């Protein structure tokens, strides 16, 4: 069994964040958080990241020194009653937190007694708040809601779907929801309900009116779909449409079930006159993107989706990884041979070091990988939670569907070095911010951080390599953003062949070796 673990940053949130994402996204649902005052930080996430204009629907039932000594029941009862009277919600969720779980109090018993007196229905999430992580908690809690409220209903006349997934604090999820809505509208499909975003008891009750459930993110929601299938025979798909293939599959899967033609929608979006084809085919993108070495890391859905998308625009994925360790097998299968390597891991430091050693041209990761990339001077695009406030934009910014792809192409274009620019830098070196300096400070930073660090483990007997004067001069002619890689490749080549000194001969031979090995045009 795992024991105490060193962590710098976390990837998945806690069960508490999962529960409050579900409950907080719904209508007339108020959550009473039973925990120490610090656990009230979920309020901050809603009011800062989502820029809530109302007070977030979370009330803390504080466990302080007194509650530790005398028990917290009184405080909890008082808080729930007050919330019931003041906010008049349909549902009050009473949730423990990581630390209050350790008190091993029977919240369900409290709810059972108290529920008789409150107007609101009281729900205690069937979740282990200490052990479970965010997505597991969301999956379980959504299922609990559906089990509690869904009822048999007649189907809508027109083919309709439920969108399962969109919620506050997700990665661009509300933007995605708009994009999927507009996509479905183009296809002639009606959206019956969205869950949990904006859902009320009524929404839950009427879920079964739809013909199909669409679970938009693989991390959670599938259990609820499974339940709706078992209990009400509802069909469902689980799909995150990122890039052209997954979007086509998504559209076709819906079209098939709806009996609607979707080919023209797909063709129209991928036509030579369309933005996606125009960009993908452009010589600019050939020059700037093709064969570039990327790494991809994130949650399951976004890492899989981005890996697809990158291959579709000619970018090589050196490795693709996810922190969703429970989904490792599915991830392996989904990536297939789209990436040279699959890397499932949730240790920030290990991922950071792997990025450093890979020396990618661009990183697609979470906010944490943005840190690592900044440290090692690689360009980075955030494609998954955990994210920064900058990934809670105001202007529509979908990730899914054709519009999501279009937006991502812009983002990549403005992050990676442009083709002609790169050529010129390759040819004649960087621009200096001052005038006439031979090496810029930016380069110096890069050189410092590029140069191989003291390796984690020094291989016994590894020879310290010398670079002769000519070779050093040649290395300096390499632009700073690839110099580190060239140095490492050359040294590896030299060591493997027993050279003790790097000369021009070694550099040139190493270049021929590494370049001719690769058939993808990357450096």
């Amino acid at each position, binding site marked *: *069994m795992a024991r105490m673990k060193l962590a710098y940053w976390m990837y998945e949130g806690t069960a508490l964040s999962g529960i409050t994402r579900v409950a907080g996204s719904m209508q007339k649902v108020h959550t009473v958080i039973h925990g120490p005052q610090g656990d009230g*930080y979920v*309020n901050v996430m809603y009011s800062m990241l989502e820029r809530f204009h109302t007070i977030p629907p979370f009330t803390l039932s504080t466990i302080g020194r007194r509650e530790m000594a005398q028990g917290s029941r009184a405080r909890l009862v008082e808080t729930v009653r007050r919330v019931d009277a003041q906010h008049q919600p349909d549902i009050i969720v009473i949730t423990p937190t990581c630390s209050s779980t350790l008190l091993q109090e029977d919240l369900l018993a409290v709810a059972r007694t108290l529920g008789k007196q409150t107007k609101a229905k009281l729900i205690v999430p069937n979740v282990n708040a200490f052990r479970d992580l965010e997505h597991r908690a969301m999956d379980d809690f959504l299922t609990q809601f559906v089990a509690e409220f869904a009822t048999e209903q007649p189907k809508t006349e027109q083919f309709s779907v439920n969108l399962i997934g969109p919620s506050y604090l997700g990665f661009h999820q509300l933007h995605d929801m708009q994009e999927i809505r507009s996509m479905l509208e183009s296809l002639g499909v009606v959206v019956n309900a969205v869950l949990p975003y904006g859902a009320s008891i009524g929404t839950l009750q009427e879920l079964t009116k739809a013909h199909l459930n669409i679970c938009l993110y693989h991390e959670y929601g599938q259990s609820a779909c499974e339940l709706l299938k078992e209990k009400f025979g509802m069909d469902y798909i689980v799909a995150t449409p990122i890039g052209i293939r997954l979007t086509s599959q998504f559209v076709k899967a819906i079209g098939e079930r709806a009996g609607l033609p979707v080919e023209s929608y797909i063709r129209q979006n991928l036509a030579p006159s369309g933005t996606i084809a125009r960009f993908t085919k452009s010589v600019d993108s050939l020059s700037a993107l093709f064969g570039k070495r990327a790494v991809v890391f994130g949650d399951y859905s976004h890492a899989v989706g981005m890996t697809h998308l990158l291959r579709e625009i000619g970018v090589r994925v050196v490795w693709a990884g996810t922190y969703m360790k429970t989904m490792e097998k599915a991830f392996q299968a989904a990536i297939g041979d789209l990436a040279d390597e699959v890397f499932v891991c949730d240790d920030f430091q290990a991922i950071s070091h792997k990025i450093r050693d890979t020396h990618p041209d661009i990183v697609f990761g979470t906010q944490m990988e943005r840190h690592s990339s900044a440290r090692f001077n690689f360009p980075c695009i955030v494609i998954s939670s955990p994210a920064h406030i900058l990934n809670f934009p105001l202007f529509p910014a979908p990730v899914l569907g054709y519009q999501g792809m279009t937006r991502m192409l812009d983002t990549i274009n403005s992050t990676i070095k442009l083709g002609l620019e790169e050529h010129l830098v390759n040819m004649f070196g960087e621009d200096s911010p001052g005038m006439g300096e031979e090496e810029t400070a930016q380069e110096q930073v890069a050189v410092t951080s590029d140069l191989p660090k003291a390796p984690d483990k020094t291989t016994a007997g590894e020879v310290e390599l010398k670079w002769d004067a000519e070779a050093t001069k040649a290395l300096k002619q390499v632009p700073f953003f690839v110099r580190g890689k060239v140095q490492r490749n050359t040294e590896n080549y030299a060591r493997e062949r027993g050279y003790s000194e790097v000369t021009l001969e070694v550099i040139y031979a190493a270049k021929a070796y590494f370049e001719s090995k690769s058939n993808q045009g990357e450096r």
Partner: protein
Amino acid sequence: MERVERENGCFHTFCPIASVAWLHRKIKDSFFLIVGTHTCAHFIQTALDVMVYAHSRFGFAVLEESDLVSASPTEELGKVVQQVVDEWHPKVIFVLSTCSVDILKMDLEVSCKDLSTRFGFPVLPAATSGIDRSFTQGEDAVLHALLPFVPKEAPAVEPVEEKKPRWFSFGKETEKEKAEPARNLVLIGAVTDSTIQQLQWELKQLGLPKVDVFPDGDIRKMPVINEQTVVVPLQPYLNDTLATIRRERGAKVLSTVFPIGPDGTARFLEAICSEFGLVTSRIKEKEAQAWRDLEPQLQILRGKKIMFLGDNLLELPLARFLTSCGVQVVEAGTPYIHSKDLQQELELLQERDVRIVESPDFTKQLQRMQEYKPDLVVAGLGICNPLEAMGFTTAWSIEFTFAQIHGFVNAIDLIKLFTKPLLKRQALMEHGWAEAGWLE
């Protein structure tokens, strides 16, 4: 103190471990290891949303279920510390406890002692559980943990003597040798180097050339504190540290107001000068000048109604400063009041009829807010935006913690934290938002 109300409310404040955000920058070559749950780590990275430092010198020893039943955390903690040492080579590690540690009654003190011995450098436990502490009190806990590194005696190094032979002697040298050991002054609080430099400069001008500050950024350079020491706190939330200094060092802790605002700074300097027998007359003049420099800002503040919801424990000194600015502080909510260390602040506020609420109830405050109709509400991060949408103008209480507000020189920065939101509202009303119906 009878006029302090207590509501025992559910106040909105961060957990004390949030203090690592500034402490890990302040104490050089340190590492902060927070022993807690997944939530602690998630809180730091999302709620603070700081993420400005790609490589922060802090991390989490995340408790797993197996740890809950473990007899002693020493072994597991030792492994984590080993990893930290391998990566960072810190000169000191602070092991911060959290609510879970508190609930589980884990004994980190003993573990830290063992680990200090094993690793040969200080591994210091700091009690930062959020069960009953507000976020700035994390600083108190860390300073308290550092006290053993504060020497009781000056280092035995001989001062370098001038070797030039003196050609005259008035026979006074024996007197000198017999002089009383000099009293030293130590200011307490993890403030920035720039703030320290300013306060030292002020005191030097008043005749006190040597002013120490605890903590120094370098753990090897902590100032001497003993019976000869006069200790003056810079922050109102260092109560445990001060209590221990009183008790264990026998130092004199000067009870004064805090050097926040020209009025506070003047009283603070006066108290020190009096203690050291220095002339205080120049201070008034300096205070007057400081107020004059603030005049354009004061014109904005005078007569305004300001309410503190209570968050960072700086509320009482800030409220006192505002009353001196001619502001009507309609309520000074604060999570906790240490009546001894805040005695002078409390007296001043009570003289000025300010309503003080300890551990306020947010729901009730919301109702009172409707009555007060304050021009400005100082509130925690979590509720500013909704309050703004409700039509209130707000200031962000965490800004006062993350800004330099001590002394005369910084008074302008301090006052702008209050005038800025007011000016912003005014500016926006003049630039389109009045027509947009913003007042409604």
